[in-house]
């Protein structure tokens, strides 16, 4: 059932910078549930490339500003 993901993310930080956007709001914006946003933030789920791009677009930043490779 896997281990930790080889990348981290700044989704929570970016949410807080965007008017304290809730996980639920972000989930609705990108078409996933609140629980999936929580799982992404906690590194328990690797989002699809499409969702990763959608997250970046919601925050108006590039993909690498949201996700960073930690190897």
């Amino acid at each position: 059932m896997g281990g930790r993901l080889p990348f981290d993310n700044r989704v929570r930080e970016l949410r807080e910078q965007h008017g304290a956007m809730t996980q639920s709001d972000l989930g609705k914006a990108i078409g996933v549930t609140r629980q999936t946003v929580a799982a992404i933030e906690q590194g328990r789920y690797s989002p699809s490339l499409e969702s990763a791009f959608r997250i970046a677009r919601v925050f108006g930043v590039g993909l690498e500003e949201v996700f960073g490779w930690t190897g």
Partner: protein
Amino acid sequence: MTFHEKSAWIMAFALSIGGLFYAVTVLSMSSGLGALAPPLIPTVVIYTVILVVLAIIGHIVAVAFAPEDADEATDERERRIIDRSGHLSAYVLGAGVLFALGLYLWSYNGNLMFYALFASLMLSQLFEYVVQIALHRRGVY
């Protein structure tokens, strides 16, 4: 907890209760007969009814407590969880079928083979929901 995870808990519970009923019924019939009781249609029908009724009641309760969750479409993480759990449960079913066939070749007892196949079906279904719950909790990578 997403509606999908609640649904997995409900189905795991319903399958456990149904399986327990079936096992207890077969064991008590067998102890009365002094041999393995043959599979009976009414027992299978009652097992199915228990499963369906518990599943319906469970889902109605889950919807009543959080109706907005029930309207949510299955998202990509849940689809991945469903795919992974279905894939893993297929191994359990396959192993059970092989075991049941081996059991028949060893014993030439059709009743025993029926129970082994039915148990494989029940266990693989239960395993699928348990894996879904685990993946919801631990994460899917």
